[in-house]
């Protein structure tokens, strides 16, 4: 048993850490966040140049052949820096869906670009009514003579406002919550009939809802087998959950460090507030949550790229449940430990707090994953 990263994995993580340290000061992040793009095009370019956007792809498609552990190493550092570039959406999810489902033509067409960072993908899998159940798909894709016509709405597509390609789920058959009958399509952001309502997110990023009104796609827009996308979506969101666990652990580490530092430095009643036992114990509870989350992130990474099984499902649901809970706990207790300053936009803790709570709203919250886990109880 060995829970340490190997030398190459450590080097990878150090590379990301150095890059983030150099490029991602708190002030710069605010600038990136407020820009029209919503993140740093330059930082994204550097991720590509350093080969970091290529990490999970097979070598024959221009990738690095990295597994869940490597992806998590990258995501942990992006989480520490609170980076808002769409790595999860484009590299992990978009690239993952195209790699698994796409024909070799589609893979060749898209993966090279996604791996180099020159192409950015975003994924539209959820809908206004779907909550976190990705099989709840009401968007319809009607087969026509020469392709498909899509109608419906996809909800909260992070990074969708600036993506070069959108991977969208739509129903080609079946009832609205059937696993069977869901298909994936590649949609150009310029497609006629596609409208985007773009918005900032509360955690400093940008996203949009997609409105598909008679969007006409060619047959080559179908990604994978018609009606058989549910398993692929489930598998890839599992990989993304593992990646998100990495980001969450990175953000939690910094949130805990900031809080601990504050407890040592802030004085009230003539002593550093960290002398007060009630705050000490809260800090220990926060650290304990972080360690539980770290343990589950490690476990998630170990199954992220394994073949699908109930064991993999259980571990990923458990991991997402734990990081959802621990992230929210650390956010809330960290704000409380900071007092008023933890409430301000100008102090970086608040931004970690917001991101950690929002991670719980991505790919299913702790309640959702508790239900999933309970259904798999043995």
């Amino acid at each position: 048993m060995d829970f340490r990263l190997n030398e190459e994995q450590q080097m990878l993580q150090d590379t990301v850490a150095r890059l983030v340290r150099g490029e991602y000061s708190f002030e710069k992040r605010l600038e990136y966040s407020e820009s029209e793009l919503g993140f740093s095009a330059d930082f994204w370019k550097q991720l590509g140049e350093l080969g970091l956007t290529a990490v999970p792809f097979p070598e024959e498609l221009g990738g690095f052949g990295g597994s869940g552990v490597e992806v998590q190493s990258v995501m942990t550092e992006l989480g520490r820096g609170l980076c808002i570039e769409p790595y999860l959406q484009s590299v992990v999810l978009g690239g993952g869906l195209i790699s698994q489902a796409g024909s070799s033509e589609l893979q060749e067409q898209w993966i090279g670009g996604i791996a180099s960072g020159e192409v950015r993908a975003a994924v539209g899998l959820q809908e206004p009514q779907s909550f976190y159940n990705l099989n709840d798909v009401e968007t319809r894709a009607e087969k026509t003579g020469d392709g498909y016509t899509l109608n419906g709405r996809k909800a909260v597509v992070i990074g969708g406002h600036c993506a070069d390609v959108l991977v969208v789920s739509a129903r080609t058959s079946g009832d609205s919550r059937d696993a069977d009958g869901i298909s994936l399509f590649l949609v150009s952001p310029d497609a006629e009939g596609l409208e985007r309502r773009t918005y900032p997110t509360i955690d400093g990023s940008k996203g949009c809802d997609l409105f598909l009104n008679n969007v006409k796609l060619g047959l080559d827009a179908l990604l994978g087998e018609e009606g058989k996308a549910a398993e692929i979506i489930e598998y890839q969101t599992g990989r993304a959950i593992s990646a998100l666990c990495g980001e969450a652990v990175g953000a939690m580490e910094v949130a805990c460090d900031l809080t601990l530092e504050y407890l040592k430095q802030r004085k009230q009643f003539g002593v550093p507030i960290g002398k007060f036992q009630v705050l000490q114990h809260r800090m220990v509870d926060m650290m304990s949550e972080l360690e539980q989350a770290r343990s589950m992130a490690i476990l998630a990474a170990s199954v992220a790229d394994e073949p699908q099984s109930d064991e993999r499902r259980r571990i990923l649901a458990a991991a997402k449940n734990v990081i959802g809970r621990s992230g929210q706990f650390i956010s809330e207790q960290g704000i409380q430990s900071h007092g008023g300053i933890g409430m301000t936009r100008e102090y970086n803790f608040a931004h970690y707090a917001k991101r950690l709570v929002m991670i719980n709203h991505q790919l299913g919250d702790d309640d959702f994953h508790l239900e999933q886990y309970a259904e798999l109880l043995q």
Partner: protein
Amino acid sequence: MNLNYTTEELAFRDEVRAFLDEKLPADIAAKVKGFRRLSKEDHQRWQKILSEQGWYATHWPEEYGGVNWTPVQKHIWDEESSRYGAPRSVPFGVNMVAPVIIKFGTEEQKQRYLPRILSGEDWWCQGYSEPGAGSDLASLKTRAVRDGDHYIVNGQKTWTTLGQHANMIFCLVRTNTEVKAQEGISFLLIDMDTPGITVRPIITLDGEHEVNEVFFEDVKVPVENLVGEEDKGWTYAKYLLTYERTGLAGIGISKAALQHLKELATRRIKNGRPLIEDASFSQRIARVEIDLMAAGISNLRIIASVEGGGMPGAESSMLKVRGTEIRQTINDLARRALGPYAIPFVEEEMDLDYDGDFLSDENAAPVTPQYFNNRKLSIFGGSNEIQKNIVSKMILGL
């Protein structure tokens, strides 16, 4: 990153399983799995089997008859023996006083006591807590005054677990009142048959006689029973507590208790369906199982980090808190699973030989008492609040 056992470790696990399959008495396993109280004889029978196998003293170096397992092997033993329902060894002799004697004791003390612990001849109990010294252990008042070749001991110890079975007690006593509390404490080994010692039972809220008060009135203890140096006992006491804390997380026991809970919840009925299929109850089980999964990995991380040697530090304090909360939650859910049948206190059904009709479920009777009994988990071995103080000081530097 590698979360798997090595081939050798897997082979060891097979060896452990084969041993437990063959040697663990079925009646003892049934008691453990059903939360029933073990008799002194049960403990001794199992202890003898372990000693014959050479697997009793898992924390000792081989030269004293220990087995010198690696941290991973110890972990495998914990997991498997819990899963099979093997009793945990009563720790006071083999896992608490013995490591102290090995590290700080004289050659005579090693020669005298270690073989008697291995053979089961001596049953040790722990004389730490006092009525006025619980979490603030260093405030203890039991006095030992040097008088020629003896110490004269006067005072009272309490919460002495299974002291009613013991013939030996290791005690923290005050030998110096002039110095700081921690600096005037000594570590004494005392024969329970010495005149002046009285053991009085404390019956706990579940009706059990598990703990005792021990009174010392002019008890004469030979000076050769002092461990290490006079007034240096606090150092030895703390050394012992690091041994006590490891394993207090009870991950293996929790896994077995969770299995017991699921079986119970499969037999209990709510709304015409097995309780385990009830949405809210299954989610309560799911939640604690998830927490246990995470704590299990945290435990393995600590084990892997000490695999090269050494003792785990304050991180095991964090895990003690987490692990005991998890065990208490599992006990809580087992009690809830009984519904109104949590209320009857049916002592006769706790007896393994009971052959009458069961009021509700064959495993129901010990469940509520066990729930109440295990409130102790967050109190003993350093209360969970004390553990947090340790983490706060040692890891966080607050």
